[in-house]
């Protein structure tokens, strides 16, 4: 009996069209747009100005606070301007525009493919290196990694969980990374274990990737304390709290951090970035992105420089299909619909999904028939139908009493609703409202 999380969950069609495709490295485009807010927290502060010459890996912007991250150049060339640009958030925010000239890397970066296993650095040195490299959670949450590794006083981690679940339909970036960079990932896990001072790590992989499970299990045999755990397929297993429940049967309480149950969760893409940062001195400026969709000619996994406009990726996968109705940054469950294909790839972009016009349009909604399917699928044990009602009627006390602030915005409720009710749309509004009320009460 395979393990999985215990409350709710759904089984959307997997549609892993690009599974098994080799990772192809894309050349740098003519111009990159590197946003200064690619992470949760304060935007980074630019340290370059118009006309500056930069190399691949040059620091462009310094972290703007404790919860923030450094940003490095992904190309070599000249800074064209620092201006507002439309990014995946749907708003115009500051970004650095760089005109590409050649491909000149910073000398400190080790560009060889050789595996470096030895790591003699101390925990603090590792964390400093991670912070310097600007690494953030690459599963999509984009939370700065070094912050996660520094537990608040009084807490002690005893297990490191590697999120290789990739429960979003369509996406295969993490899967392909495991198949090709397995050894590097395992070294990265050992480094993170040292940094977080734990001696046990579990790599959670869903059972729909048997090749990755076999490959990683074989490799992990020679690393101490690392175990590969196959998990039963169920969305949203990649949610932090759900994954901890699935792997350890510990449930993080409402409002608490994973560290409160002794767990640290890192995405497998993040682990690879940690390996590169610590062993190869390579800051985070490129990542694997899946470009996929039923109408896409050539669904692929690309290694992309951050800041590359998404239409460059789509061209490489065979161009924009005729009847494209929606372009999504990320997976279909939690990804964001993009306004234009000129939006650049960010640190958290795990995929680009193109939906056809027919797939894009929502069906008309109907009155709630209280079938309770949303209640059955909610992985947080909430009642989405009631939360939506509380939000629509602005009954914030009731919404808070029903734990609206615990919603992880996985979208299972809206996915399931037979009446096509926009449950998550409304809950999101209610959640931010209630969180604001809670914050103002605390201060």
């Amino acid at each position: 009996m395979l393990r999985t999380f215990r409350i709710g969950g759904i089984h959307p069609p997997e549609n892993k069209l690009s599974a098994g495709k080799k990772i192809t490295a894309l050349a740098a485009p003519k111009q990159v747009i590197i946003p200064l807010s690619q992470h949760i927290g304060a935007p980074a502060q630019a340290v370059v100005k118009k006309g500056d010459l930069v190399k691949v890996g040059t620091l462009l912007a310094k972290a703007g606070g404790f919860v923030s991250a450094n940003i490095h150049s992904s190309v070599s060339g000249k800074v064209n301007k620092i201006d507002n640009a439309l990014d995946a958030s749907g708003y115009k925010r500051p970004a650095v525009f760089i005109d590409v000239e050649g491909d000149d890397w910073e000398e400190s970066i080790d560009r060889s493919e050789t595996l470096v296993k030895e790591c003699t650095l101390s925990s603090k040195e590792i964390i400093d290196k991670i912070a310097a490299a600007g690494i953030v959670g690459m599963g999509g949450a984009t939370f700065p990694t070094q912050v996660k590794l520094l537990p608040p006083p009084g807490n002690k981690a005893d297990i490191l969980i590697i999120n290789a679940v990739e429960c979003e339909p369509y996406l295969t970036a993490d899967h392909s990374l495991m198949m090709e960079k397995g050894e590097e990932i395992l070294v990265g896990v050992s480094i993170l274990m040292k940094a977080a001072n734990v001696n046990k790590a579990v790599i959670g992989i869903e059972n729909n990737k048997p090749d990755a499970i076999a490959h990683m299990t074989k490799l992990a045999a020679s690393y101490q304390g690392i175990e590969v755990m196959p998990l039963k397929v169920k969305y949203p297993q990649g949610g932090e709290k759900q994954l901890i429940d699935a792997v350890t049967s510990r449930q993080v309480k409402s409002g608490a951090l994973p560290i409160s149950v002794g767990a640290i969760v890192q995405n497998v893409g993040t682990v690879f970035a940690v390996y590169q940062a610590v062993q190869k001195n390579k800051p985070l400026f490129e990542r694997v992105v899946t470009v996929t969709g039923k109408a896409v000619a050539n669904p692929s996994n690309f290694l992309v420089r951050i800041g590359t406009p998404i239409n460059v990726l789509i061209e490489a996968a065979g161009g924009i299909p005729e009847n494209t109705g929606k372009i999504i940054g990320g997976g279909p469950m939690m990804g964001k619909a993009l306004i234009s294909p000129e939006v650049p790839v960010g640190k958290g972009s795990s995929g680009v999904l193109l939906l056809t016009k027919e797939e894009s349009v929502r069906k008309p909604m109907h009155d709630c028939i209280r079938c309770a399917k949303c209640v059955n699928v909610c992985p947080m044990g909430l009642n989405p139908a009631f939360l939506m009602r509380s939000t629509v009627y602005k009954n914030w006390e009731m919404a808070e009493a029903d734990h609206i602030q615990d919603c992880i915005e996985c979208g299972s409720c809206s996915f399931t609703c037979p009446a096509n009710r926009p449950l998550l749309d409304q809950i999101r509004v209610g959640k931010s409202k209630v969180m604001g009320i809670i914050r103002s009460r605390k201060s």
Partner: protein
Amino acid sequence: MMILIAIISLGVIGIIGALLLYWASKKFEVHEDPRIGQVQSVLPGANCGGCGYPGCAGFAGACVKADSLEGMLCPVGGAPVMAKIATILGKEAAAAEPKVAVVRCNGTCQARPKTNKYDGVKSCAIASALYGGETGCTFGCLGYGDCVKACNFDAIHINPETGLPEVDEDKCTACGACAKACPKNVIELRKKGPKSRRIFVSCVNKDKGAVARKACANACIGCGKCAKECPFEAITVENNVAYIDYTKCRMCRKCVAVCPTGAIHELNFPPRKEAAPAAPKSAADVQPVASATKAPVAETKNEVVPQATEVKEETKK
């Protein structure tokens, strides 16, 4: 006999119940200042919260408690209601200026071309949490009518032709519910002005001039001509957008005449005798012509000015 017993027993039960109720009403009586009830009875009872207190009862309580009525205003009832409250409480009623809600966006369907289609719930709160909006302007009105839903007085409606909300000045009580509901902060409460005459900048776009102009033909491009023209220093330009301070504005209308994009609106003024287009409505009408002639979007502010004024003069002739 049976009847007698029934009557007596029921009567006794009734008397015991009455005594209990009497005792309870004495024992658990809540002392409340009777003036609160009196004040509440003269309030409109809309519970709109425009005064800043939770409903009319809360406002009444606050009025009774307060030392003076200064700064206390029921926006719905206005000065007459405040005068009544003042007589009840024996305090001075502070004079407050009447205000009205003003929509500071003129990004009509024609002026602001759509760049994408929104397919979510028709709610400004949800759409603005998701992204900048259906047009190139990420600051302006979204047009899904959260303000209309928030209004308790049926005073604001979306005009289907422009896609923008319009305020019914006679019904508007300046309670501020629409301004609070607007996630883009497009709606502002402004002084109603003598004879309801008002001048304001109908744009909140903070993008640079060229970007704003590209997104919307009616946008304020932050050129600063109005600020230079204003004899009373009522106009400030910050973040590429002009703002008229209504406490300083003397309604000379010079700024309206110099605005190259027609972003400054004047309301309820008599038609002008000479120079510049008269009513704000026609200023809005001019813009589609400007975009129809496909005037190239000017790169610098200096170029924009002659072009747009040219068009205006054309229509005037």
